[in-house]
């Protein structure tokens, strides 16, 4: 028997394939293409205490091997999420992670407090969104700042708390250690890399916000390295993210220490990519005689 399950912070996942925040909405659009119950889990679009309109101007720009985005955390706000989106998500038969962003510690706390009262399985604290001016970014760069927000949220958070790290952190290992010390039950990494692009004809930045977030297969080698380093340093479950396109990428992430993984930009190339990945992973494990993910987790 090949066992794809994995337990993340007390929650059982059918398989290690989670849809990454911001690339999967609240699952609605994808549920038209396949049953979401097949997924290990879904991380919701980044939520903030209050509704956000997101950024103006161009929001998506293709680059070699990936894309820059500047969505700017457009979301309906926690209340509307709980009212309109969560009931739908709860019916899908998969693990639900609420991805939470914020501009201030207070905002994080108020948002998490509201989520405490729901059936959400896991809270994923996004301290890394690079798109909001003076926003999430500030918390994701310096370990000390991250420590502060994570430990304050930890105090009131009744759910398993996963902190999502930014690859722009000064020292990813130190950052990871600080978040764990502050009470994170798990870590997910990486979020997007700060990047930019210029329209050379108009002589202006492509994005109104100038700087945007880079994702996609082009960043995979860096993300993999970060997961490797972090997994050697901490003892909590790690969700690997960054440029995952197929099952082979997943195996790489697991071998460097990820417990599960998230697929982001891959969903844009093919809305059913997560299913292909799950199938491919299963076949690979059978071929290689791998009975459970633990066997290969962190063997590098």
């Amino acid at each position, binding site marked *: 028997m090949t066992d794809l399950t994995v337990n993340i912070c007390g929650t059982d996942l059918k398989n290690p394939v989670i849809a990454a925040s*911001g690339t999967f909405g609240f699952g609605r659009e994808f549920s038209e293409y396949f049953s979401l119950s097949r997924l290990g889990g879904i991380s919701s679009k980044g939520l903030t205490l209050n509704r956000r309109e997101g950024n103006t101007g161009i929001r998506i720009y293709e680059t070699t091997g990936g*894309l820059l*985005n500047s969505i700017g955390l457009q979301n309906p706000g926690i209340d509307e999420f709980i009212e309109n989106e969560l009931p739908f998500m709860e019916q899908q038969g998969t693990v639900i992670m609420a991805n939470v962003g914020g501009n201030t510690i207070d905002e994080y706390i108020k948002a998490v407090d509201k989520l405490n009262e729901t059936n959400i399985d896991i809270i994923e604290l996004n301290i890394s969104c690079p798109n909001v001016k003076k926003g999430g970014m500030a918390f994701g760069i310096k370990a000390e700042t991250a420590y502060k927000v994570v430990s304050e949220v930890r105090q009131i958070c009744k759910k398993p708390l996963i902190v999502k790290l930014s690859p722009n952190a000064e020292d990813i290992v130190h950052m990871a250690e600080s978040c764990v010390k502050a009470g994170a039950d798990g870590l997910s990494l990486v979020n997007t890399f700060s990047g930019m692009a210029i329209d050379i004809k108009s002589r202006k930045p492509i994005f109104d916000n100038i700087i945007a977030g880079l994702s996609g297969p082009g960043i995979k080698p860096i993300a993999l390295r970060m997961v490797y380093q972090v997994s050697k340093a901490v003892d909590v479950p790690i969700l690997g993210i960054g440029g995952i396109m197929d099952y082979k990428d997943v195996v790489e992430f697991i071998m460097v220490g990820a417990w599960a993984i998230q697929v982001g930009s891959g969903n844009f190339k093919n809305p059913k990519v997560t299913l292909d990945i799950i199938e491919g992973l299963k076949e690979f494990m059978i071929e290689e005689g791998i009975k459970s993910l633990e066997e290969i987790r962190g063997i590098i």
Partner: protein
Amino acid sequence: MKEGYREVIVYSNKQIASNIYEMKVVSDKDELRFEGKSGQFYMVRGWESLDPYLSRPISICNIEEDRLTFLYEVRGKGTHLISTLESGHSLEILGPLGNGFNINIKGNIALVSGGIGIAPMIYLAKSLHANVDFYCGFRNEIYYIDEIEENVENIFISTEDDSKGYNGFITEILKPEQYDVIFTCGPLPMMKRVVEMCKGKVRVYASMESRIACGIGACLGCTIETKSGIKRICKEGPVFYGEEVLFND
């Protein structure tokens, strides 16, 4: 459940004007026919590699039985690659996506297109059951007019270099008051002008463009601002009620 990307076969793919191509695709499986309303689009991927990373949105230009037509302009890498696909080759498409035009409208209707904005108009003219006039502006070379002729009453053409029809912009010869509804697709400044001309007089529906990533409404990358908030081109659109759209410059 909707299908994901499906493989289709290039039936023909030919250049019909400078940088303008017409591609017809057929299904590789007999049972499968193409669905879709005018104004809807497909995500098209005609390459195996990850560069370009994203698929390209192309409108339904026509559907005839088991044949789907795309009319497209080669602008950059993606459309160039599509233009190199030869008959018999396969490509992947996802769709139909988006809302499409409301074709149940009656009365006197004008279709106003600029350049490659003519693409969705072909199928729209065919789908409408009303009196339709067609206004199409081109920069210089005109194309694809024959394909629409039998489905419309009058055709008005403009070129910017006086090579055919009216010399100037198509909006200069459009008489909004003659129509009950106007459908438009083309460059943003043109659509903006059409909406302005018709304000308070004629209902306008405009097919908007934006950079598309997922194409299915999940990433919030393709949004435009409207009077009733942020809307997704690929889901609530691409067709919007003109007066709703906030045309930013």
